[in-house]
């Protein structure tokens, strides 16, 4: 292009823009000023001027190149697509095993284990209301139960995600089960999905909690132990999902998650670990809401910020340590009980946002998740949705297909700014640990949840079938929910009682005392003692109760 042409082109663009402004003003129907959920103003049109203002192509770079706006790998979804990891867990270990083997037969390459809420809360099945057993996850109380869950599953080959809060009893049970079957721990791959104890304090979900200092200690021990003995395991998953489900805006969820990751990384460094060694094993887990472009921008911005933090703030030199690897789940909050089949469309749009955002692993919700743990039929549709998007709609043929979009790039920049400002608030409060201890993050999220509710109640945020386009109640599309078979659960309970009684009291007492000795000594690894306890036949509740006594219990804060 010769030089004199360039200015003329600019003038022409400006005129065209003026014409558009006039025509838009004349024709516009909806003149409201719009903002996205994170509070960023949204204009009706973005142009090249927005791209120039935000640094243009140079800032963007290419896939696989820092700061990874366009993706953490050169190949992205043209290489390995994403892992389809559906959450599974219901009933007894035998029920779970049957469901798991079915999934593996149909081609799943990664499994997950969701325990019963009683397990999350640190109780065994003989000390909770029987009505609640196995209704939301599988009842696993000891290594024998885990062995039954994973019967016929090649644990050395299939990646296993454990929904396993501190003190990581499920991983301990799995390691013992693998050991009994002669499987080398060096071969075991997967993720401790609930290692982010700070997120459990921010969002009161269903997790048992040690006191904050106790949880901090156990997490560091867990990471150190896994790095040494289960080297292919990802011990740290930093979770934004709980916070966004609890009401955080997309920008808040990303900011608080990155601030948590900084906290954990700095704790590891303080313990003498090398960021180039442990950061490549950090993964992230996010919610994908229906705010389509906002979610895409959230992921692109988060990726960029993390690369910079890993390099500049945490001092990692290896590019592998800068990569922001994440699993994402479509948001259940957006799903509706009314006209539930509409949820399939919602999940599709959410999944698309995650895919365009460059995810590494995806769980698509089943349309019936708004009233039950997914039925098998609904779960099949959720998996098919992923296959359709990838193989029929060709969403993955081009890497970062929205890269360079005037709107997406401008929004990515603005989300980045917003996220950075929120992270500054956390830094000013002394970091995420202190901010959570003081209830600061909980209050911010509570206020956002209230704001969102008001948007829905006022009709500003449309929810089809709920506050607009309402139809007669279509109860027939909500089939009756079946709970786990009570007789099978009773047998599971009876067997558990018998097995517990058959143990040597002296051996149990010794294993518990060893847990105490580990908890009281700075030289011992508490998670190592949990694994030893699991090997000696300790139950989930026994381990949790003892550590709660020795390391303190995490009471919830009351914030309305």
């Amino acid at each position: 292009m010769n030089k004199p042409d360039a200015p003329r082109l600019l003038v022409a663009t400006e005129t065209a823009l003026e014409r558009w402004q006039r025509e838009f003003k004349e024709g516009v129907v909806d003149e409201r000023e719009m903002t996205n959920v994170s509070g960023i103003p949204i204009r009706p049109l973005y142009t090249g001027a927005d791209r120039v203002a935000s640094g243009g192509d140079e800032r963007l770079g290419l896939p696989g190149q820092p700061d990874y706006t366009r993706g953490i790998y050169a190949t992205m979804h043209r290489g390995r697509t994403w892992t389809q990891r559906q959450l599974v867990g219901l009933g007894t270990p035998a029920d779970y095993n049957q469901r798991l083997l079915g999934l593996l037969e149909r081609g799943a390459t990664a499994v997950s284990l969701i325990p019963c809420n009683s397990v999350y809360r640190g109780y065994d099945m003989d000390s909770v209301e029987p009505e609640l057993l196995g209704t939301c996850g599988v009842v696993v109380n000891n290594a024998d139960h885990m062995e039954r869950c994973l019967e016929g599953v090649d644990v050395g080959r299939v990646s296993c995600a454990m929904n396993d809060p501190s003190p990581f009893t499920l991983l301990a049970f799995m390691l013992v089960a693998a050991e009994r079957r002669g499987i080398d721990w060096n071969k075991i791959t997967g993720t401790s999905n609930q290692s982010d104890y700070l997120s459990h304090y921010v969002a009161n979900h269903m997790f048992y909690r040690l006191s904050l200092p106790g949880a901090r200690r156990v997490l560091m021990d867990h990471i150190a132990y896994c790095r040494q003995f289960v080297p292919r395991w990802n011990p740290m998953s930093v979770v934004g999902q709980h916070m966004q489900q609890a009401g955080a805006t997309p920008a808040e969820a990303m900011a608080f998650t990155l601030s948590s990751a900084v906290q954990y990384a700095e704790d590891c460094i303080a313990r003498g670990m090398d960021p180039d060694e442990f950061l490549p094993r950090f993964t992230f887990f996010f919610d994908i809401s229906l705010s389509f472009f906002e979610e895409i921008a959230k992921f692109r911005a988060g990726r960029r910020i993390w690369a910079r933090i890993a390099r500049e703030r945490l001092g990692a030199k290896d590019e592998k340590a800068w990569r922001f690897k994440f699993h994402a789940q479509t948001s259940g909050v957006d799903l509706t009980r009314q006209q539930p089949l509409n949820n399939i469309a919602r999940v599709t749009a959410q999944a698309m946002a995650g895919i365009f955002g460059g995810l590494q692993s995806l769980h698509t919700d089943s349309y019936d998740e708004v009233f039950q743990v997914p039925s098998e039929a609904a779960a099949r549709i959720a998996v098919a949705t992923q296959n359709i998007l990838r193989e029929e709609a060709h969403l993955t043929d081009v890497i970062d297909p929205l890269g360079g979009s005037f709107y997406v790039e401008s929004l990515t920049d603005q989300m980045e700014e917003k996220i950075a400002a929120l992270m500054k608030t956390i830094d000013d409060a002394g970091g995420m640990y202190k901010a959570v201890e003081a209830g600061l993050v909980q209050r911010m999220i509570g206020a956002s949840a209230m704001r969102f509710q008001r948007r829905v109640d006022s009709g500003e945020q449309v929810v089809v079938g709920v506050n607009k386009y309402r139809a007669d109640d279509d109860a027939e599309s909500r089939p009756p929910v079946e709970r786990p078979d009570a007789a099978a659960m009773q047998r599971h309970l009876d067997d558990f009682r018998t097995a517990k009684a058959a143990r040597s009291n002296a051996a149990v007492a010794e294993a518990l005392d060893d847990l105490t000795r580990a908890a009281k000594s700075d030289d011992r690894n508490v998670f190592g003692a949990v694994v030893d306890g699991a090997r000696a036949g300790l139950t989930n509740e026994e381990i949790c109760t003892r550590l709660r006594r020795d390391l303190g219990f995490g009471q919830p804060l009351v914030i309305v």
Partner: protein
Amino acid sequence: MNDDDFRPRVLVTKIGLDGHDRGSRIVAAACRDAGMEVIYTPPWQSIPAVVKLALEEDVDVVGISSLATDHLIVPKLVAALRDAGLGNVRVVVGGIVPDNEEKLLLDAGVREVFHPGSTMDDITGRMREYAREARRAEASADAGGPA
């Protein structure tokens, strides 16, 4: 008693194992903003703890928020309230409750189940109505009439 004088006393809580408290926090705040006396607790309350609180705080309505199947033990709570002489206290449930189990709850004496999609105005309006109902039943029982 006109509307300005009437201050419903409501307990908003969660029983059982799950702690997803976005719903209970929002409903508690909405009830407060609607002029009610709100007694709010963190999640994971036991049934005896809720009965004790309902008694001590002299509440008109107990609101149980449930996301992950904890509604299955609400019939036990209703029975425990009745056993403690709090049969006039109205119990409402909000959250994820399948249709077939909603019927079980209503049969057990739950006054209403609020599903996702209910507006805060819906919920606070009904809570106020049930509080008034509870207060009248209590007054009539005190006067020796039928509960």
